[in-house]
């Protein structure tokens, strides 16, 4: 089988991300690359500016816990059924990260503006929320198509340096497939570079198959691919594996303290076994 030209190793992919990079990451219901988050922790990257599309989950939480993150722009950070994200909450309390709060459709819209190559896009709602008061980079203007009045929010295009996510598979051409999780397509379109972990590489070309094409992202947008089996774990991957809620609850319990998080990391990120499994 011809592997895609962009195929690389996980650690080599993590090495492409410099300190201070802005990275778009999907939430726990949409294929985060937890494997890549762990590889970034191992690499010791610092000062990341994470973008939740539209919210943030486990990958963001552990990157914050490991001290890799300077800023989070998101609509929420949550571990879903496992509750509040403890290292995120601690970091907000301590003021050790900058939080740029948004609301879900605004996160999508800012990326869609980059996807279309326009400097801004309007969005309804938001006016009256304190979110707007804390976003000097967002503007309000009167709808020029109304007869006067009708204020509407304008959001600037957001073009992160990297999009990082996990997909079910890649093909020989370097296209990736992730089914209905199309926010990852928007991430790939909007970001300057996309780094993707996949469960496996299969022969062929998804774009030649009408059944597969609609859930695929063209290799045009994908800069690097690394094979990591169960690379979203403990998060679910489509219909292939489920979220490991017990694992997340265990994490949430341990990560209540910085020491507990360090212990969790030692076991699940830094042990040779954990690293080799990726």
């Amino acid at each position: 089988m011809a592997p895609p030209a962009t195929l690389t190793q996980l650690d080599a992919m993590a090495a492409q991300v410099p300190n201070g990079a802005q990275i778009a990451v999907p939430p726990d219901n949409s294929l985060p690359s937890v494997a890549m988050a762990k590889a970034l922790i191992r690499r010791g990257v610092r000062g990341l500016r994470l973008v939740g599309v539209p919210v943030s989950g486990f990958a963001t939480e552990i990157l914050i816990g490991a001290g890799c993150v300077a800023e989070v722009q998101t609509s929420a950070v949550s571990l879903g059924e496992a509750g509040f994200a403890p290292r995120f909450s601690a970091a907000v309390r301590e003021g050790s990260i900058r939080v740029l709060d948004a609301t879900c459709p605004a996160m999508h819209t800012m990326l869609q503006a980059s996807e279309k190559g326009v400097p801004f896009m309007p969005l309804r709602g938001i006016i009256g929320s304190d979110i707007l008061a804390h976003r000097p980079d967002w503007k309000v203007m009167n709808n020029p198509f109304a007869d006067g009045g009708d204020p509407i929010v304008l959001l600037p295009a957001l073009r992160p340096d990297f999009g990082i996510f996990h997909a079910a598979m890649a093909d020989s051409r370097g296209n990736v497939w992730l089914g209905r999780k199309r926010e990852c397509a928007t991430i790939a379109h909007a970001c300057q570079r996309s780094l993707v972990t996949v469960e496996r590489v299969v022969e062929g070309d998804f774009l030649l198959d009408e059944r597969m094409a609609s859930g695929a992202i063209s290799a045009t947008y994908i800069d690097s691919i690394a094979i990591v089996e169960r690379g979203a774990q403990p998060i679910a991957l489509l219909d292939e594996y489920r979220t490991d809620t017990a694992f997340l609850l265990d994490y949430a319990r341990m990560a209540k303290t910085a020491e507990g998080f360090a212990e969790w990391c030692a076991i699940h990120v830094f042990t040779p076994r954990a690293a080799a499994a990726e």
Partner: protein
Amino acid sequence: MSDFKPEELLAATICRLVLDPSQPVARHVAVGAASPIPAAACYLAQKLGYPIRLSLLARTQGNPFTDGTRELFDLTGQGRIDLFFLGGGQIDGQANLNLVGTGEWPGRGVRFPGSFGSAFMYMMVPRTILFREEHSPRVLVEKVDNISANGVSEPGVFRRGTAQALVTGRCVFQFHPATARFSLASVHAGETVASIRAATGFSFDVPAEVPETPAPTAEELALLRGAVCDEMLETYPEFCARVFGRKLAA
């Protein structure tokens, strides 16, 4: 009277608010993640024979959206979602919601997860039912520390609707957008106007007569425990086990 769980009372109560004939018809209702009681209320309405389309964001299998997570917001922007549910770490007397956190922005006291889509959804759906089981002065405050989503808007700001009601573990409040105030609509069994006042941090209006929240009917209870639970078992296994005593077959 005590033959049902509090969750069953809440689901039946919310179901009646969904079906309230004085409100615009809810043809398509969306229910956010982690909202089993509102989901049960909507399934109950369906099982009672009302043709409601229900989009459950928590469903991983058969998630209704094929255009990514933005589709819910686009769908709402298009005016196709008639009713949504919201809660909040704090809810105040003007129906402002705080999902960000207490203390200084962005939640330097207790940080909540974040605003999610509330700042958009609250203004873009014709009807919102607020729901929060905990009814205490800590949650129901005079003024929220931070506004994720505002209860009413300035004149001239595009807005399709406001809160219809606020349902808690103790009572049902109705919201009046013209005055931006809640009034007490009914109290759950065991509560009084005085007990509600004591547990509520915001001031609200009280009509001359405050009824007790009606108990679920036998039909409603049978549906909740049967057909509704069947629908919810896969998505909300812990809720179904705890409330209905039913477990998903392994």
